[in-house]
């Protein structure tokens, strides 16, 4: 996999030590989902912090705790401001949803493995994503757009429950203009929607994929991932060329507290991005 970068905002001497960062921008995305941009207070960290597409940070709000949040901004954006897209569902994230620009929260990271943007150069890429799963894939999309000539055909299949739940709709045209075939679908709609209705895996039926050249990157609800993988394998794309991003309860981000294990892997340090052949044995065992 792509070599990880140094963890600039992680203390080797203090466990879980947070680095303070100020909220520079807040954006409501869809119901229960928002984006938040953070700028480190320490100028040295601001200067040096880098992340790879697919990685995450631990956000800390004193009194509430930490949450693992996908980084969703452009990895090439080195202004020292890092963007995250958050689903406000638990105590910590709901508390974060009540903050304002100028408020300060704790940040640790970056953690985890990244989408293998180097390894998949030259290939056709299918990005299959649903709901908030698009958040950790958006940095990969930005990377592709910055280096478009390094990749073959790029197809984005993205879906959500209803048209109102689609993430980043204002960006689709720009992505199309940069040579990405953007196919959007929703599970259900009303008659005012003239786009596609159906589920993300269904879109595999509508495209001819070169199984020898294609790579699949997928992130979303685990059940969607499972069906995307079925469709990918059915089209003879090998498990070694299907990459998934998984989510589990995370506390430390460093492979120490044990919570995020699946089989021998710690999702926070061996993942969250995995090559599917490594997961195959465990992925379909119920409740493993």
């Amino acid at each position, binding site marked *: 996999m792509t070599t990880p970068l140094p963890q600039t905002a992680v203390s080797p001497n203090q466990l879980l030590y947070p680095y303070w960062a100020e909220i520079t921008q807040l954006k409501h995305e869809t119901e229960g989902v928002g984006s938040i941009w953070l700028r480190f207070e320490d100028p040295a960290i601001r200067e040096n912090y880098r992340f790879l597409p697919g990685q995450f940070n631990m956000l800390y709000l004193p009194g509430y705790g930490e949450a693992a949040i996908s980084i969703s901004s452009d990895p090439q954006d080195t202004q020292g401001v890092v963007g995250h897209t958050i689903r406000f569902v638990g105590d910590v994230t709901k508390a974060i949803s009540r903050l304002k620009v100028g408020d300060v929260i704790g940040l640790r990271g970056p953690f985890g493995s990244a989408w293998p943007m180097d390894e998949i150069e030259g290939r056709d890429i299918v990005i299959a994503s*649903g*709901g908030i799963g698009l958040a950790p894939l958006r940095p990969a999309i930005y990377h592709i757009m910055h280096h478009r000539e390094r990749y073959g055909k790029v197809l984005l299949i993205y879906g*959500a*429950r209803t048209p109102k*739940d689609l993430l980043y709709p204002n960006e689709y045209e720009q992505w199309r203009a940069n040579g990405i075939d953007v196919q959007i*679908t929703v*599970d*259900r*709609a*009303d*008659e005012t*929607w*003239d*786009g*596609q*209705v*159906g*589920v993300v*895996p*269904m879109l595999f*039926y*509508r495209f001819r994929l070169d199984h020898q050249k294609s790579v699949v990157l997928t992130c979303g*609800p685990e*059940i*969607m991932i499972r*069906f995307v993988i079925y469709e990918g394998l059915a089209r003879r794309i090998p498990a070694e060329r299907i990459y998934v991003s998984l989510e589990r309860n995370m506390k430390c981000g460093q492979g120490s507290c044990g919570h995020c294990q699946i089989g021998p892997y710690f999702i926070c340090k061996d993942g969250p991005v995995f090559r599917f052949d490594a997961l195959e044995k465990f992925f379909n065992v119920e409740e493993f």
Partner: protein
Amino acid sequence: MAADPEVVSALKNIPWFAELKPEHFNRMAEAATMRHVRAGEELFKEGDKEDCFYVVVEGRVALDIFVPHRGKVRIYTAEPMDLIGWSVATPVVHHRTASATVVQPGRLVGFEAEKIRQMCEEDHDFGYIFMRRIANIIAGRLMVTRLQLLDMFAEPSAETRHAQ
């Protein structure tokens, strides 16, 4: 009745048809007509008693079901190479169970289902090939429907499994 050349050239671009034996291809093409459709055009309504199925060549057709108190729920869209109205191949309910509306203009090939069903009766080899293809379409549709049913993006509800 000779086949419409526009129908023939459209079907030759769809592997579903192009891979048929010539005599089967020709008989199917003879039972078909090309239809040009505009955006917003209603192809058929729930309750209609027409006996044909359509293959989308270009454009997009949406399937809606009217639910009292909820209005029209859009449950599916068919893209090029997709097939609408498969149930005429195995008729149980003898009328349309959803409404079809064109959302992106294009062309559809409409087939007279009675003629196709007769072809299946007369020539079981053809019947097998045709029914197998219909089964594939239904399988894909069923997969989509199951995932829609699972409501995979839904918030946790009473059905959420809590820990013992």
